[in-house]
């Protein structure tokens, strides 16, 4: 879910930028001395694949894939967060809006990647790669949806400032039923649940395929190891 410009209170999206800058600084600190020759192309391909997936519609549900958890599993939490920033920058640059809320959008997408990666490696190894990736995806998407609902709920605190508009010197307010965070939560979780199943199944199958043909991609070693190949090592 991509939040557009202008609808959230200023203090909220500014907080988003501050938190994103802090998280990005931490991610870049973790990535210092990274093997750029291997990781920058992988970062570019996975960020681009997220963009392509976001624009592919799964019919007849009109659900748009995301692949952020797949990117998180393959890139790791730090590089996954950078990929989330790149995707939001590119989305803003292809006219999808979200310049002011890039901080919050990056935190949401970055959290999907980081949570997906963490859950994938926390789940017991006796589960198959498919089920670990699928469960990690479902869990990450559910938690991030709760995060999105919390952001919208927080923004409703300022709703009177936002919805009250001055007209001819008087402030007119439109209160035709009050705010409904429950309605928003119902729409996000209700519509999202079907999407999570599709996303989980596809992420699970993609990760299983990659673990069979290119297990080195799942090793996500940040630093080059002198004199030895990383292929196959650390693969689940």
């Amino acid at each position, binding site marked *: 879910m*991509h939040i*557009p410009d202008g609808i959230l209170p200023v203090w909220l999206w500014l907080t988003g930028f501050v938190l994103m800058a802090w998280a990005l600084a931490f991610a870049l600190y973790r990535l210092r001395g990274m093997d750029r020759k291997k990781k920058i192309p992988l970062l*570019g*391909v996975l960020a681009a*694949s997220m963009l392509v997936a976001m624009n592919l519609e799964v019919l007849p549900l009109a659900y748009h894939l995301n692949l952020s958890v797949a990117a998180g599993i393959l890139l790791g939490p730090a590089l996954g967060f950078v990929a989330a920033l790149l995707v939001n920058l590119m989305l803003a640059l292809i006219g999808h809006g979200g*310049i002011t809320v890039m901080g919050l959008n990056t935190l949401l997408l970055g959290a999907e990647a980081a949570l997906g990666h963490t859950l994938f490696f926390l789940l017991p190894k006796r589960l198959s790669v498919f089920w670990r990736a699928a469960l990690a995806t479902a869990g990450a998407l559910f938690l991030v949806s709760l995060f999105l609902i919390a952001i919208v709920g927080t923004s409703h605190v300022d709703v009177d400032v936002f919805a009250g508009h001055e007209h001819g010197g008087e402030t007119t307010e439109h209160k035709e039923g009050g705010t409904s965070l429950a309605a*928003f939560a119902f729409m996000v979780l209700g519509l999202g649940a079907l999407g999570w199943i599709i996303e989980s199944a596809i992420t699970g199958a993609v990760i299983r395929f990659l673990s069979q043909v290119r297990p080195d991609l799942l090793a996500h070693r940040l630093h080059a190891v002198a004199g030895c190949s990383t292929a196959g090592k650390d693969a689940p």
Partner: protein
Amino acid sequence: MIDVARIDQWASDGDSPLHRASVAAKLLFVGLVVCGAVIARDPVPLALGFGLLLAVAMTIGLPWRAIGFLSLYAALFALLYAVSLRRGAWVYALVLLKSVTPAFAVGMLIVTTPYPRIFSVLSGFLPEIVASGLFMTYRSFFILLDMMDSFGTSIRLRGGFSPGNIIRNGTNIAKGIGALLVRAVDRSSRLYAVMSVRGYNGSMAEHGAGAFTAQDWLPLGAGAAVLAVVLAW
């Protein structure tokens, strides 16, 4: 599907006054429109601002229908958010215009400015990993689009698509995505290696993309007009 290749062609081949303006002025134009959208408390001035941008795009021959279609993507979440507020048509209109107007301004920026020129300005203040990643994402996007062109055809020709069999189709599509990823990583790695050998170090080679020119009156004037209408209302 976003037709980034088409956007790139408009940006590279066009010759409107906005094409001739500097990247810095057009980025400022987007900033002014975003400021207008953020501080607006009434849909009327924003509607006027949106109308002004539309008129500019039509007058100078930009693909205004395509830009308008692109900006509608931002309206999807805005509509969901507006419904959650339940404050009536006035607020729905305000929320929709707040999301669509800046998106339209960005649309005007990207159909008149090739991405590498935008990246060259952005790479001036982005961390090197992010700047390199942005460029590689842009290149990989085209690599993936190129590969996906033949993916749909080949999956049908090889019997990978069976109408009604969701599980089999899903498995084959996922394997296809995985195969595309593996090939795209290989091609992208080769590209990065070639660029590194030729001296690429994360910054774009274009100089002067951030300098102002005499043609900047249009983006700066249009952006200032949108902000002024919102402030004066």
